[in-house]
Structure formats: C-alpha cells, structure tokens
C-alpha cells in the first residue's frame, strides 16, 4: 500500500536521535502544562513558537505534537489524583478516576488512562494517516442540524446519570443549564446574566466550574467534617493493573476511541461530548457485571473517557492536515507556526508537503509510545502523592486550583468565581444534589444553543431544517428507538423501603 510506504518513510525520518529528543521534550513539557490547570496545550505551543523559529519545521512540529498529546494526558493525572481536571476534556475522567484513587486504586486508574490514551492515540493517528482526505470531505458536510441531534442524544442520555432522586438530578441539571447561559448571546450580542460585570460577559470556563464544584466543594466538605469523622488513610493498593482490570478496560478503550475520533474530525467537534457519551455508555454496559459499580470507582469510567479524549485529539488532525482547517486552539497555533515556515496550510498540504505531514504523523505515533513509556512507570509514584495527610493534601489542592484559576487570565476575579463555585459544590453535597448533571448542563447547554440557533438562523427560522441532514435523521431515529425500548422494558417499580431511601440519600451526599 502506498500510504504504508509513506508512513514508513515518515517513521524513518522521524526516528533520528535529534527528533526523538524533541518528541521527548514535547511530551514532557506537554504533560507538565497538562498537569497545571489553567495553562492548556494551546498556550504552551504559543509560548514556544519563538523558541522554535531556530529549528527545522519538522523538529518543531514533532515537539508541538508531543506537547499536544502530552497535555491531553497530563490533564487526566490531576483529574484522577486531585479531582481537579486541567482541561474540559478530562472532566469525565475525574468522576470515577478520583473515586478509584480514594480507594487506593490510583495507580490502576492512571495506568488505564495511560494505556487507553496510547491505544486511542495510535488507532486515531493511523486512521488519520490512511483516511484523512476521505474523512475530511465527509466531515465538512456535518453541519449544525446533525450536531444538534447528537446533543439531543447526549441530553437524553443524561437521564442515566441523574442519580437516585429524579427531582434532585433535574434541579442540578437546570442549575447547570442556567450557569451555561451566562455570557454574551452570540446572535444578538446581548450580555446575559452578567449583572454588569465585565468578566461575566463571556461564557464561563468549564474548567473553573468543574474544579470549583469537584475539588473545592469536596475540600470544603471534608474540612467541615474533619473533626467529626475519623481520619481515614487512603489505602495503598497494588502498583499495577491486574488481569481483571485489563479485561475490564479493553472494551471501554476501543469504544471510547470509536466515540472520540469522529468528534475530533468534525469541525468544532471537541472532546467534551464524546467523553461524556463514552462515560454513559460504559456506565450502562457495566451494570450487573460485577466489579465496582459506577460511583464507587469503576475502572471502565476512566478507560472509556480517556480513550475518547485522546482519539478526539488525534481526529483533530483530519481537518488540519487534509483541509488546513484548525478546529482547536492548539491546531490554529500550529497552523500559524506552519505559516512562519512559509508553508501555506490548506488542502495542498498533504501533497505539497507530504514529507512534513508523514513525518508529523510518524512522530505522533512515536510521541504516543513515549508517553506510555514515561507514564506507566510513573503511575505508582504519582499514586503515593495521596499518602500525604488529608489536611495538607486538601490545602495543596486548594492552592493548586486557585493558582490554575488565576494563571489563565491573571485576574483575581477568576479566583473569586472559583470560590463561589466551591461554595455551591459544598452546598450541593450538603443537600444531596448530584454534581454530575450540573456539569453536564454547563457543557451541553451552550453547545446545544449555539448549534440550534445556527441551524435556525440559516434556515430563517424554519424548524424542518433540523432534519435536513441525513445524519441528523439517523440520530433522531436512534433516540426514538432507545426511548421506545426503555418504555417497553419498564417493569413495575419495586416498593422502596424507607431504609433504602435513607441509604440512597446517604450515598448521594457522599458522592
């Protein structure tokens, strides 16, 4: 096969000691910035731009690719260990990952994230290598109506994560949707719920909301109970993944990849929706299979979203290399860098600069392998971090979270916002409101609104435009079938005992 030869050529070009070193530097730097909340890979690449002007195009791109993948991976480390997602894409990882960590299974969580990222990244990169042009032409046909349909699907699926009490789940979801409304109305330019505060004129950063609700809320909750509950030391588990962990992870890795890659490839796809879809799918599939259930540290809930996250990161290269279209901030910085070398990004890139493209793809594969090699042995070491006594650990988390919020914009207001969400998180724990639906509301609300309004603006308000794309129709049929199936399968509800309700509330509060 022609592409094989080209990829092989790329691999042999990339495997020079110098390039391998740049890949290693990139991966390390990327992991570093991924771990720090507030500095994303886009910022890191932008900051590095001037440094790389002295380098060859190939070398600097190898480094950028390393930063990109490294950043995606690094974000999951803090999600798992400290419940502070560094990127919006690793919000879902925090849910089960942090619970695994609390049960002494941090090493396993980190390992399944590392291996899952590797597998998803590798499969994704190979798909880019062999099918990018074909995929790209399909991807541009996917417009707002299809995207909106997928959002509706995601919203229907939130039903599975609403928790034991429907009312509480819905309250949380709607609070989240309301938070998602804050900011400028994109179509009319009117500020909404901004109360005249300039910093509220923009959409709130999901990372700030998630870190506030997850990490700060939890730290405050623990602090409030510190005197009343005995100090429970987090057990130190085995350092490696067992065979059972591996068996439970394989399916989620592959399904996560299948979710993540197409989203990365469609313009403005992002990693939030596929990580969420992967999470709910795994939650549903894991039901009744034994092992830790979701909510108590299920490894499937880490393996799936992490794979989806990295597959989406790989998918981003489809529009970038085949069409020269940047779909993420990192991609646009990388394309700007290309222009710095006098290379015009565009559909010609793969033919005119094929050496560069194939070397880049090869170095993505290498960077991925390096990430695995570096991070797998580190997992047990990171896990030891959790043996720090609780007061100090939570103090560290608070410091880390505030630093991240401040570093993004160097604005004290953001720290205040973070604290406000921390208090909301505390209140939600106190009153037994589940936090996940709220986060989903914040993520899904603005995306859904943007796509719905884009579709309706284009059609001049004609609602039939929502089913004008084949993919949209297919998705609606899937939704209808899923709802129908649930309706038909519904059994009469078992009578609930009062103790059970109590237990459920207890479980909710402890989430």
């Amino acid at each position, binding site marked *: 096969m022609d592409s094989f030869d080209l990829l092989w050529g790329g691999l042999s070009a990339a495997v020079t000691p110098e390039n391998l070193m740049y890949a290693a530097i990139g991966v390390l730097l990327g992991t570093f*910035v991924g771990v720090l909340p507030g500095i994303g890979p886009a910022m890191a690449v932008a*900051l590095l731009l001037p440094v790389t002007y002295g380098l060859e195009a190939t070398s600097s791109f190898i480094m950028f690719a390393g930063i990109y993948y490294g950043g995606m991976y690094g974000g999951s480390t803090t999600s798992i260990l400290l419940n502070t997602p560094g990127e919006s894409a690793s919000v879902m990882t925090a849910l089960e990952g942090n619970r695994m960590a609390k049960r002494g299974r941090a090493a396993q969580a980190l390992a399944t994230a590392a291996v899952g990222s590797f597998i998803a990244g590798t499969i994704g990169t190979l798909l880019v290598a062999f099918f990018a042009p074909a995929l790209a032409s399909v991807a541009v046909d996917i417009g707002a109506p299809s995207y909106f349909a997928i959002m509706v699907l995601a919203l229907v699926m939130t039903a599975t994560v609403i928790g034991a009490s429907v009312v509480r789940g819905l309250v949380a979801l709607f609070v989240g949707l309301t938070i998602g409304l804050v900011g400028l109305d994109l179509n009319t330019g009117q500020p909404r719920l901004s109360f*005249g505060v300039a910093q509220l004129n923009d959409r709130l950063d999901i990372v700030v909301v998630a870190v506030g609700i997850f990490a700060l809320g939890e730290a405050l909750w623990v602090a409030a109970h510190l005197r009343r509950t005995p100090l429970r030391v987090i057990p130190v588990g085995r350092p490696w993944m067992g065979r059972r962990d591996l068996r439970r992870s394989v399916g989620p890795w592959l399904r996560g990849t299948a979710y993540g890659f197409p989203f990365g490839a469609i313009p403005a796809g992002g990693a939030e929706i596929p990580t969420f879809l992967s999470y709910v799918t795994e939650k549903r599939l894991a039901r009744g299979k034994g092992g830790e259930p979701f909510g108590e540290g299920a490894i499937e809930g880490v393996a799936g979203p992490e794979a989806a996250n990295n597959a989406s990161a790989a998918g981003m290269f489809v529009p970038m290399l085949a069409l020269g279209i940047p779909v993420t901030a990192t991609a646009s910085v990388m394309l700007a860098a290309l222009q710095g070398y006098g290379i015009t990004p565009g559909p010609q890139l793969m033919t005119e600069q094929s050496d560069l493209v194939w070397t880049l793809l090869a170095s993505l594969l290498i960077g991925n392998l390096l990430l695995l090699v570096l991070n797998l042995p580190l997992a047990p070491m990171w896990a030891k971090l959790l043996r720090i006594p609780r007061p100090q650990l939570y103090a560290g988390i608070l410091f880390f979270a505030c630093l991240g919020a401040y*570093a993004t914009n160097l604005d004290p207001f953001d720290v205040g916002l973070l604290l406000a969400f921390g208090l909301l998180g505390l209140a939600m724990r106190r009153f037994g409101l589940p936090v996940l639906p709220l986060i989903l509301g914040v993520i899904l609300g603005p995306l859904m609104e943007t796509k719905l309004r884009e579709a309706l603006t284009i059609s001049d308000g004609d609602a039939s435009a929502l089913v004008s794309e084949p993919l949209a129709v297919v998705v609606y049929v899937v939704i209808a079938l899923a709802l129908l199936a649930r309706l038909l399968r519904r059994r009469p509800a078992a009578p609930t005992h009062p103790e059970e309700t109590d237990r459920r509330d207890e479980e909710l509060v402890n989430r």
Partner: protein
Amino acid sequence: MVGAARALAAVAAALAVTVSATGCGVTRGDDDRDLAMWIPNSPGGGYDQTGRAAVGVLEGEDITGGSFEVTNILGAGGSVALTRLMGEEGNEHLLMTVGLGVVGSAYSFGLEHGLGDATPVAQLIEDYEGVLVPADSPYETIDDLVDAWKADPGSVVVGGGSSPGGPDHLFPMQLAETVGIDPREVTYVPYDGGGPLTSALLGDKIQVGFSGLGEFEGQIASGDLRVLAVSGDERLRGETVKDVPTLQESGIDLVFTNWRGVLAPPGISEERRDELVALLEEMRASPEWEEQLEKNGWIDRFVTGDDFGDFIDEQDARVASTLEEVGLL
C-alpha cells in the same frame, strides 16, 4: 552536537516561559525599562500575532533595553482586557494591543468607556477583509452576489469569524448598507473563527463568508474557495489574491479596513507617551518589522499619538452608527 546544544537552549527557554506563564507574581527588580504587553484574545488569534510580532522585534533588537512580558487576557471580545487597562491608570510600563474588534466589543458589552479613553500610542498595521464563496457558488463576481442579495436578502446567508460588533460582522453590514439593503435584513451567522467558517463554506452551509484572508490562503490557492472582492482601497499583494478586485473597482463605494494598534493606560505623562511612541517608531523602522509585515501579509499603516487618537474616535463613531443601523445598540 550543535543540534543537542540548540535543543538544550530550547528546553531551558521553554521552561523559563512556562514558569513565567504561571505568573507567580515574583516582583522583578524595578528596572524602569521593563514593559508588559497585554493581548486581548487567545494565543494564535489576530491580536496575539500582531502583539507578539511587535514584542518579538522590540525584544530581539533590544530596543526597549529591558524585559518584555506578554500576557493574554481573554474574555468578552477584548472588553475584559480594556476594562482592566482603564484600571491601570498611570501605569507607564504597560501596553495593550487593540483593534477594530475591541471597538465593537466595547459597545456590544456596554462598557462605560471606549478605546478613546485610553492613551493612544500607535496604529501598527492594516488588514483587508475579503468576500469569500465556495468553488461551486453561482456567484462569479461581486455584482452577481449583490444582485441576488438585493433581490431577496433572506436568501443569502452570510457568515463571519467574529461575534456581532466584530470586523467580520461590521463588514457585511456596511456593505449591505452601501448597496442599499437594510442591514436588519441581513442573515449573519457568527462562527468561532476562521476554521469553522471555512468548514461552513466548504460544506455549503452558508453562501458567503466575510473575513480577513490570511487564514484562507490555502483554500484560495487550491480553488476550493473564491474571493469576489477585497475591502481595501487597493488590491492585496499576495500571490493568490493579487488578481482580486477591490470593492471600489467593482463600483461599490466602500472601503473597509481592519486595523490593529497599541494603547497605553489612561493618565500617563506626555513625556512617557512620547517615549513609547519613539520605541515603536524605532521598531517600525527595523528590517525585522518589515519581515513580519511581509510574512503575515499585513499592510504597513503607522500612525502615532494624537493622529491615532483621532482615527480611533472616527472608527468609534462609525462602529456605533453601524451597530445602531443593525439594531444592536
């Protein structure tokens, strides 16, 4: 070995920037030659490119003689950064990159102040916008487009890479007004920058795109996108776009330019402003700046001090009238 040394230098520099980016707030020596540059949008965006290019030249040529720190202050189309600039009254070591988009944002977000309230230092560059259609579009010339648009304004969906009040939004509105279409009838879809706008055009989701052309060079060269007209008073020089007529050549009396420049906080001394102007003048005269203009396809339009202030006031009034026309004010 050379490669290894270079790589080491790269790592050291990278770590240094990463550490400084975390902004630990370390108090530096009060060297009065130190400066800071604020960028009102994210890395990779237009202001970022211009601001960092200017800082790169100022630093590379050691024109300022001190350190130069660049900070991206995101939010609300630049109005968060502008508000904070107003709060830095009297700070003589701070500059901020601004442009037409920030003028619009100050209105959209209902700020009490505009760019005119800060201290104008210098306009640096100008950038023309273009009218883009996909390859299979029925519109071959700007006249085809205008005819169809006039006949049924609702049938032509236009898109741009900026939110209402931004350049890509103001341009189609002013064009519509110039050719006699009520701007309120224009269907404008805002996209999140050039990437999503390109996909929308390639996927035939919208009929026309209005944007700066830098991000579209590849698509134009390959023939996937076609430029019907450019918005400046003369043609662009780039290889792919030098044959595209201006609006005026096509008989439409409109010149629309996007520009970027540098402001300082309000309330700085006259002497200090002149010093800052002198620094930028020196930068502009350097061959390195020339190179940056060439590389980015920017048009050199250097206006300083009060002249720049007058220009800002004029732009401000024009943006306000367009937004009023569209019903956004």
